[in-house]
């Protein structure tokens, strides 16, 4: 954990060079098995004049974050040779804070996937069981933290791309309020849903990293003004916001048949009881099931539509592998045909179909309307509650062979509700809370817009209850 490493660095028990070498060594050792990285950095580089809590701490960046002079592929062949000429704001801030980059992590191609299996460089495996996936799209970042290669990694989250792999990887995954961290330099998937966020092994570490990378940005109009808070310091104050709720339609054990899901929900309700005994007030609230069922299609429609447009810059003309042909259309056509995998193409066709004049009203705009209904309902809930607590996944990470299995409609809701956090830009965190069939499962807390500190604080108190802090893959659950 960052806090421990900080202490060791300050007491000169270890040097940051040693931490870096150790991280690189481990990254290389685990690479063949888990495939966390697209690029592992060979050269130790640090801003010597930096003075921050992260100085000398090694970390990893998702490979869809722009790093000048370092290959950035978004795990897609269409960018397989792309070396950016500019730094993403999050990278610049970490560089200036003296954090030491160890590598660029594998993701689902162009961040458009939730399994960690669609990168151009191959699948990412779950450190707790290499026969299982880790989830995505921030697969490599989750795996690198779960493996203990780095104490923190940066990811991006459009539907649940940080919070789902965090659940499957037994680590903390936090995406703050939309705009809290600048998106400048994050390769866009769906701009109105995209967030930058962090993976760590404790809630406190998530607060520490967020403190460094948050803030306004002259390159991102949606970046929020400075809230003047240190989230780390806020954790040490007494928590006054302790009213939580869960959504009854999602958490009713009787609705499910899958034994692992039943186990997860049983553990979840136990956790709720423990929260209550620790001074939390927790109620079940209702959301119209029609709305809950609409979350997934709404997410698909909006994200695919925006993605089709956002990735129209990938033509191989000015960057990326140049296509072949005698006309301008032929070279664009060839670059894109070769550069995108089938899955990506399918999503783009879908997105384009959704935006077509004759479908836009029925598909795209209706999805945008449902988005509002869902967000309005959640904001109504937030009038009475400080946070919504739900299982981050119905069970542990699926095996590779089971990933395409049919799931019930009910389970679709359970597995996709975290997109609510993206619809409304709500701060949302996943922390490990139990093990089902030897695999970690996370609990998710989502709070009011702007109240990142409160969400972290609630998560910290629940972390104290679960005792699951600082876990690495292989650590046995007691």
């Amino acid at each position, binding site marked *: 954990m960052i806090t421990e490493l900080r202490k060791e660095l300050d007491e000169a028990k270890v040097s940051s060079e040693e931490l870096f070498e150790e991280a690189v060594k481990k990254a290389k050792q685990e690479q063949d098995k888990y495939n966390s990285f697209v690029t592992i950095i060979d050269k130790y580089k640090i801003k010597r004049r930096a003075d921050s809590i992260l100085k000398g701490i090694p970390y990893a960046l998702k490979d869809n974050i722009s790093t000048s002079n370092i290959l950035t592929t978004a795990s897609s062949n269409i960018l397989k040779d792309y070396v950016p000429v500019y730094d993403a704001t999050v990278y610049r801030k970490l560089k200036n804070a003296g954090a030491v980059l160890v590598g660029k992590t594998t993701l689902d191609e162009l961040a458009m996937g939730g399994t960690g299996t669609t990168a151009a460089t191959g699948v990412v495996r779950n450190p707790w069981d290499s026969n299982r996936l880790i989830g995505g799209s921030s697969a490599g970042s989750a795996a690198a933290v779960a493996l203990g290669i780095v104490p923190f990694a940066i990811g991006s989250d459009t539907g649940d791309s940080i919070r789902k792999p965090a659940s499957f990887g037994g680590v903390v995954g936090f995406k703050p309020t939309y705009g809290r961290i600048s998106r400048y330099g994050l390769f866009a998937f769906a701009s109105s849903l995209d967030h930058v966020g962090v993976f760590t092994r404790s809630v406190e570490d998530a607060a520490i990293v967020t403190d460094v990378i948050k803030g306004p940005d002259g390159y991102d109009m949606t970046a929020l003004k400075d809230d003047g808070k240190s989230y780390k310091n806020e954790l040490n104050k007494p928590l006054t916001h302790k009213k939580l709720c869960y959504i009854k339609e999602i958490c009713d054990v009787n609705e499910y048949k899958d034994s692992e899901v039943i186990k997860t929900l049983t553990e979840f309700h136990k956790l709720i009881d423990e929260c209550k005994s620790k001074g939390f007030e927790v109620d079940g609230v209702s959301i119209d099931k029609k709305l809950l069922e609409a979350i997934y299609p709404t997410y698909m429609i909006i994200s695919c539509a925006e993605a089709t*447009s956002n990735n129209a810059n990938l033509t191989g003309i000015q960057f990326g592998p140049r296509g072949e042909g005698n006309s301008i259309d032929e070279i664009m056509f060839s670059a894109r045909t070769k550069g995108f995998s089938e899955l990506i193409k399918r999503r783009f066709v879908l997105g384009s179909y959704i935006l077509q004049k004759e479908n836009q009203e029925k598909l795209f705009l209706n999805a945008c309307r449902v988005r509002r209904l869902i967000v309005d309902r959640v904001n109504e809930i937030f009038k009475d509650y400080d946070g919504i607590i739900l299982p981050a996944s119905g069970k542990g990470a699926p095996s590779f062979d089971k990933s395409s299995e049919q799931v019930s409609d009910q389970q679709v809701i359970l597995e996709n509700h975290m997109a609510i956090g993206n619809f409304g830009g709500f701060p949302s965190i996943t922390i490990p809370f139990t093990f089902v069939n030897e695999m970690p499962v996370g609990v998710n807390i989502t709070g009011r817009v702007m109240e990142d500190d409160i969400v972290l604080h609630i998560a910290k108190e629940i972390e104290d209850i679960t005792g699951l802090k600082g876990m690495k893959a292989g650590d046995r659950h007691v």
Partner: protein
Amino acid sequence: MYKAVIGLEVHCELDTKSKNFSSSPNKFTETPNIHVSTVDLGLPGILPYPNKEAVRKALKTAMALHCENPDEVIFDRKNYFYPDLPKGYQITQVTKPMGKNGYLDILVNGKKKRVLIHQLHLEEDTASLDHFSNYSLIDYNRSGIPLIEIVTEPCLESADEAVTFLEDLRDVFLFLGVSEARSNYGQMRCDVNISVMKDTDKEFGTKVEMKNINAFTNVRAAIEYEIKRQTELLEKGGQVVQETRRIAEDGKTYSMREKVDAIDYKYFVEPNIPPVKLTKEFYDELRKEIPELKLERYEKYIDKYHLSEYDAGVLSAKKDISDYFEEVLSYGSDIELTVNFVTSAILSTIKKLDIELKELFITPKMLSGIVDKVKNKEISLDHGKKILYQAIDKKIDPNEIIKKQNLHQINDKEELLKIIGEVMDENVSQVRQYIDEGNTYVYNFFIGKVMAKTNRQANPNMSLEIIKEELERRKQDEGK
């Protein structure tokens, strides 16, 4: 009889320091790819950040064209693939354009015509392509330059009307100071949609589109050619084909391609630009910055100042001239004389020297001084103009010249006494000669000194009298 129906789509680059959605320079250059940011290049991970000044200038133009304005700033994406469009989409406005349903009144051959504006929106320019025999080159300097597009209703009926509208629209840009609108730099470009129909027809004919015409003379040629071509075609019983044509150097238009299915641009709201509210205060402030436009000034000069149509036309044609003229008047100077000075002396001088009015040495304040002296008959009109030319020539304030040429005497007794006192204090020995020796030759000595000191402006007769009195007074004071 056939009549033409013409609609125009006019693009004009706005004059700002930085581009519309990034902070790279908005500056014309021949050197390729030196004014390009990550955003203009459409690199992965970039985000647009709209330029306040571009928004202000677009809104100002919309207001000057009497448009309805939006309550907030919102942009949309127009999606299509083309090598000059690095992002694969253009940021433009569909949902809430900067202006809707406006108009511009123009004078066509002395007759007033109201040209209806369908909409005005703010968008970004594309990169530019240079074509060679077997390849093309992309220069991204132009990518992202703020561009407004003004779409008229199909309400123009002739080349005269269309060209007058374009000229007057350019004057609107110039009067507002939103763009230099130089068509030779491609800063102002025009698409023409044209069809012809019988006087008695209810429905428009099939329209032909001509894109990206820079020079107004080409707009005229293209329209005149098309009216003739389409009319002849219909008269022979033929049909106009819906197509895109281009104007060639021979002044004729040629078919480029027939209209295929309209492209679906899949517009949707740009998600990276959250809406910015435009308050009443903001609009009030903006409204104050909108000057009177050409036609308003022209009508004012005729109705209020009773100028001839010719003079009103000359004085309202350019904003700098009109502003200059109005500033002279603001000092209370005589209208008729001011018109005379500005239209003859001032305009002929800047033409002769081939300079801009703002480079002229004579300020409106200086001119006002001369005009007032002519009006008060202190100097004649001819003399006034001579002084003006001298002042321009020597770069001296004309009022100084008037003084120097002794055209302005000091007749004030107090003032003269003060000067004479000083002169005597400076020349004590000559004063002593008078007191001790009664030497009256010193009178001329002192006159000479006084004239030198006042640049020969002192009234000599009055001065002599005062010198005599003052010398006598000083003598008495000594008791001699």
